Structure formats: C-alpha cells, structure tokens
C-alpha cells in the first residue's frame, strides 16, 4: 500500500462518490437522446450487432461459496460452519459445484451457455471496496484513471451515436468517459407534465453560452430527460428500490441496488425495441457478508439466478438471442477462512460469469489453490482485463488496445468469433 500518492486519493475520492464523477466536468456531453430515439424507430440496432450487459455485484461476492470446491478438505476446514457439503452443491465437475440457490444457471451450464471464469482478479489486489471497485470499473489497476472502461469505449466510438445506458439514479463510474458519459434511466416511468409547465421546464434545458460547466450539465440533463421520456414512453414501469428484506440488508454496507429482475426486465425491453445502445449496466448490492453469510448470500445468489434466467429466456425468444452477452462480476472475493461471525472478510480473486448464445460454456481459467495462499487470500489466476478485452473485441467490435492501454491478454475460448 506504500507509494499511493495524492493522485490516488483523488481517484479514490472520485470513485467512492466522495468527490465528483470527475470525467463529467468541463465540456462533458451526455448521451444525445434525439439521435437515439430517431435511430430506434427509423434505424434500429441491426440484428447481429453485439450487445453487452454488465451486472455488477456490490460488496464483494464470496466466490468460494458461489462456485464451491465442496469436496476439498482445505475448503471444509477453513470455514467449517460456513461450508457447503458436497451433497448440497449443484455439481459442475472438476470438484466444483454451484451454490444451491443457482438452479437456473445450472440449467444454462448444462446447455453449455454459461461460462465460468475462475480466479479472476488483478495483481496486488486491494481490499477496499471502493478502490477495488474503482480498479474494476476503470480497468486500470496500476495507475489512476478518471474514466471507466465503457466510458472510454463510448469516447472511442466517436460520433456514432451508439451508447451505453444504466438504470441507476447515480451514474456508475464504468460509464464515465472523457468526452461522453452513459445515460441513466429511471426504471420507473418518465412522464413530463403537459402544457405550459412542461414546456417551461423543458426550456430550461437550452444551452446558455458561456455558462459554468455544472450549470451546463444541469441544463443538458433536462434535455436528456425530455428525449428519454419520449424514447421510453412505452417502457414498463417498475419500482427500482422496493423495501429490502432483512437478509439483503445484512451485507448492505458496501452499496449496490436491489430488484435486479426489474432492472434486467427494462434492459430486455430496450433491447427488444431496438434502441441503439450496445452496453447496459445494472447492479445488485448486499454482498458484503462479514456476518451470517450463508443465508444472506444464498438469497442474493437466488435473486441473481432468477433475474439472469428470466432475462436469458426473454432474450432467447427475441431476434437478439445471438447478440447479447452478459457478464457478472464483483469487486473481490472473500477471505478463505471464515471469521467468527459466520461471515468472511474482504479477499481477492473470485469467479466471473458470462452468459449468452455466443458464450462457450464451461470453465475458463484455473481454480486458485486453497493451500498456496497469499496472506490468507486466493492468488488470482486470470486478469479481469483479459475478459474485458475479449468482450470489447468480440461483442463491441472495438480494438481493446486503446481502451485497456495495450493490455495483451485475451480469453480466446470464451466466445465464438
């Protein structure tokens, strides 16, 4: 941890939400909804165009109780009260099994449409939620960055108005670019009042020459709202943050949202209507299971499972079945050894999931050893940027070099070309 200088602090402040979304400062533009709307009706995203859905699990999902080495005695002895028995897990082969809450994903696994990348992390792992999430979302483990990896992809996609969308009220860092930022949509309905009031409100969105950047961005958000309301007038209305249950709240101190099913439902609707967006960001929170982990995590994984399964089924019925690839990740896994509260503290590597018709199902990457540990933590075997590079190249058809600073790694066997 030595050698982290003020610039790192600034990055931390930025991405932890304590300072600003720095990339959205001077001269930033947001998604142009007029273009989006025009193209959704006149020129919808052509079938055959890759679409990426990123699912972020906030809090640090315990990978060892997700893809479970149940028959490994080192696993059983490290967490006797927290471990799943071999008979409880959904067998995947190679001594690993899925958490019993993930029956839908087991079905996808059996049809070879679920890829599990094992031991995913990055060198010199950071145990802070906020920094590790920043590293994943900026894809910049070594040096600070103020832009997210999909934000840089937005920048790189130039004047072509294909864009990235999130359904969070606050922009996730991964969608913040230098020049462009993804748009956020409320999962509930958008209805601008009719008449003089609505008209006056929308007129506040006009750019004003020489305006302070924060004012300009406030104005732009009103224009975007008008155009989003028009584009999404038929989208289904959901409550994005229903009251949470006790199980989720136990691991909730590290952020993230609920109602993943509703978020993915909205995304599926947008994809079906041909909105020309190629990247979507959704999230599920509650994985910071320092205590009473088993029930909490299994419930969250069940929610993840049913949301992903329903989404996959819906997309498979559409004409986009071969276009959509979904990635699921968390900022880190957890310590191998349980703590005294029937939970686990922050750890390092964890599994990432990829789903879709183009995914080559099965295991990718090596399972980290449970005996050769780094100060009690798993040693990562796969760099997460290998996954990003593959997704950028094969799904978003963009040269990863400019987005990931020449990161050379790939997982060639992850997706069909």
């Amino acid at each position, binding site marked *: 941890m030595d050698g982290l200088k003020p610039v790192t602090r600034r990055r931390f402040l930025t991405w932890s939400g304590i300072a600003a979304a720095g990339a959205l400062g001077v001269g930033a533009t947001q998604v142009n909804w007029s273009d989006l709307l025009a193209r959704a009706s006149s020129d919808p995203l052509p079938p055959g165009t890759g679409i990426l859905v990123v699912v972020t699990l906030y809090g640090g999902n315990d990978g060892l109780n997700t893809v479970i080495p149940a028959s490994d005695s080192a696993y059983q002895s490290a967490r006797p009260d927290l471990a799943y028995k071999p008979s409880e897990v959904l067998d995947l082969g190679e001594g690993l099994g899925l958490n019993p809450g993930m029956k839908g994903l087991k079905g996808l696994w059996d049809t070879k449409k679920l890829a599990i990348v094992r031991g995913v992390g990055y060198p010199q792992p950071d145990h802070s939620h906020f920094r590790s999430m920043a590293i994943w979302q900026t894809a910049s483990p070594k040096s600070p960055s103020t832009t997210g990896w999909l934000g840089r992809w937005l920048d790189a996609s130039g004047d072509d108005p294909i864009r990235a969308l999130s359904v969070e009220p606050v922009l996730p860092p991964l969608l913040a670019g230098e020049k462009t930022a993804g748009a956020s949509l409320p999962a509930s309905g958008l209805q601008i009042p009719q008449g003089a009031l609505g008209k006056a409100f929308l007129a506040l969105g006009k750019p004003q020459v020489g305006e302070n950047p924060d004012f300009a961005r406030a104005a732009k958000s009103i224009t975007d709202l008008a155009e989003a*309301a028009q584009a999404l007038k038929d989208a289904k209305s959901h409550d994005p943050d229903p009251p949470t249950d006790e199980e989720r709240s136990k691991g909730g*101190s590290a952020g993230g949202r609920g109602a993943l099913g509703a978020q993915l439902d909205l995304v599926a609707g947008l994809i079906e209507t041909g909105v020309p967006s190629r990247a979507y960001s959704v999230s599920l929170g509650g994985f910071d299971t320092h205590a009473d982990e088993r029930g909490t995590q299994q419930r969250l994984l069940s929610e993840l499972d049913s949301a992903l399964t329903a989404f996959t089924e819906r997309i498979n019925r559409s004409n986009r079945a071969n276009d959509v690839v979904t990635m699921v990740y968390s900022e880190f896994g957890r310590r191998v050894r349980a703590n005294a509260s029937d939970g686990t503290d922050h750890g390092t590597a964890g599994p990432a999931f990829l789903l879709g018709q183009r995914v080559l199902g099965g295991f990718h990457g090596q399972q980290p050893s449970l005996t050769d540990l780094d100060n009690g933590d798993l040693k990562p075997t796969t760099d997460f940027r290998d996954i990003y590079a593959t997704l950028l190249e094969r799904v978003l058809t963009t040269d990863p070099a400019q987005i990931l600073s020449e990161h050379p790694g790939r997982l060639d066997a992850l997706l069909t070309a």
Partner: protein
Amino acid sequence: MGFVGERAAVRRLHERFGLGPRPGELNSRFDQVSAALLGNVTPSGPPPPQLQPEPKAAKDPEQQTAITVWWLDRMAATDSPLVERMTWFWHGHFATSAQKVRGAGLMLAQNETLRRLGLGDFTSLAQAMIVDPAMLIWLDGQKNTAKAANENLGREYMELFTLGVGQYSEQDVREAARALTGWKVDRQTMTASVVARQHDPGSKTVLGTTGPLDAHSLVDLLVSRPASPRFIAQRMWTRFVGRTPPAEDVLVRLVTAYGPNRDLHALVRAIAAEPVFRDEASTVVKQPVDWVVGVMRAFKIRPSELSTADQKKLLAGLRGMGQVPFLPPSVGGWPSGPAWLTTAAGMSRLQVARLLTAKVDGFSVSSLADLLGVDWSDRTRAALSPLERQPRQLAAVAVCAPEYVVSG
C-alpha cells in the same frame, strides 16, 4: 480567477454552511452573515419524535418515516443552520444506514451524537462514533470477537472516517480489528459495552505503534496521524467549496486552524474564510436533500405541516433523486458533483418541486430571483416568463433551473 459578487457570496454562505437562505436573509454583508451564521453553534429546532421501544431488530417503516420527516422538518425550521448542516455532513461522513441497523431509535441516537459533537473536537466525535451502537451494528462491530476478528469496522474506520485510503497496510487493518474486539450492543438500553472475554487484550501493532490497543487508544492513535487532519479538511472542502482539491498552501492553513485540539468549528470557519470560497469556479451541485431543504426554507414550508400522503410523496421524491436521510447507499456516503445530474433525478426533482410549491402565491420571475438569490440567465428568464401569471407553476419550474439546482 474571477470572484462572485457580494450577494452571491452571501448566498453561498447560506447554501454551503447553512441550509439555504430564508426570505430576507440575503440582505446583509458577507462579514455579518459569516459571523452570525458560523458563530451560531447552539442547536435549535423542533424536538425529535417520541419513539416506541425497539428491543429487537425490526424494520418499522412508521418510526423510520417519523425520524426522517422530523429531521427534514428540523433542517427546514432551525435557527441554527450550521449545526444541522454539520449534523448532515457527519451523517454522510460516518455514513450509517437504517437499512441494516433496523432501529429508528438507534439511528436517532446517533443523529443526536453527531449534532452534539459535530462542531467540537474531532477526537471526541471519532471516539463516540467507534462505539456508537448503530455504527457497531452497521459495520459488524459487535460480531468482532477475540476468537476471530471481523475487519469491517476497523477497515472502514481508517479508510473512510479518519485517514483515507493508502494510509495503512492490510496488516494494520487486521491488527485494528483486534483492538476493536468485544463490543456488544444492547438494543433495549441502546448502549454498547465491552464484553471482557470477547475482547482481545493482547499486544497489537497499528501504524508502527505497539501496545494492548483498544477502541479508545486506537482512535487516539488514528486521529493523531498527520494524514488525518488533511483527510478531514479535504472531505469538508469537497462539500463546502467544490471538487477541485485545495491547493497545498490552503490545506496547510486549514490544518493549522484545526490545530492540536482538532477543532472542527475552527476548521469550518477557516474554509469559509479562504478566498477560493468566493471563486466563480467553486460551484457545488446541490445534493437532493440540500435542494429540498433549500426550497422549503425559501418558501417557508414545513414537512411537519404536510399531510401524511404528501410526506410520503416527499420521501418518494427524495428516493427518486437518490438520497434519503438515514439511508446512505453505502458506508462511503453519498456522491457529490455532477453524478447527481442524471435524467432520472430530474424527473423526481420536478415532481417534488410541484409538491412543495402547491400553495405558494404572489411570485414573479424577478421576485423569485431575489428570494433564491440567483441571477437568471437569458435562457431561464425566457423559459420562465410564459408562466408569469401562474405563480405556483412558475415557482416549481424556477427551482428546477440550473441556476438553482447548482450552487453557483
């Protein structure tokens, strides 16, 4: 760099260190307002609601709503806005969510501690927070025992509350967790205490200091690190001045004001006295609660006087904008800056604006500018003028203008 004029600087004082100007409060000189606003540290406002005892963890939406409406009401009504401003600041700093605490009484007790100590010395505040019952539940402090430590509280305490990331090692996190072992919360009495047999009395080494550290001595150690005053000053700077970090010479002055007594009131006054505070570029995007409370103070609206249905609409609107008191999204608190200016939030903002201006009367485009202390741009003047004869709609749209959504 250019500086904002006297009137805008006075408005900034009210918006950043207070909770927004009430009618007539913009008519004094900067120095007068600064002395009065920043000098008033005696809490005032409506007393908290009487709550039912909560012997067990339980979600009680009615009590939760009661304390939330009460706090918003107090922010709208108080004659000591700095006190409530700092209580609100510290709530975002020591961000604790009722979602996991599941006890309105414990949240309220923490709130009162933040109010009582928020302008005193940071050592006392930090000492109170590390064994605050709601905090212990929120960060699993009471699950942390000698048998095996739970690192959650110790890590976040160093990273987010006292030092900042990068100022400690992973080994320090593990050792700090040991120092914090053994604390238990009694929900019946709303107190926390150490259970001796669950506390690890052994020697620990944190940041190079070795000894039988406990919660008290750990906090003393952390707040006396050189990184701590800089971290606290920067956190305040972000909220009160803007997202451009303070220059080194500014930071040195702020740390000097904070001084060996860790004087939070002196630090706040030093921030307000910095010339950069009046720099045109030092804009702050209002957090949703700041915006809502500002509207309520300007139009003399009290949440306590709204119907139950309208109170619920107000809270739903805040949720739509992404910020409800007592429910921070994570231990890192709420974001700042343009992250608030999303399409999704704009919709909720207009709905809340209409709710709060439903009964106002007698305003014109120019009298609203006077009331709110802003100068309308040509764009905004043109947008508002068609509503000149519909004062309620005019007021609703005016408070959604960029000039008011951002503290310029």
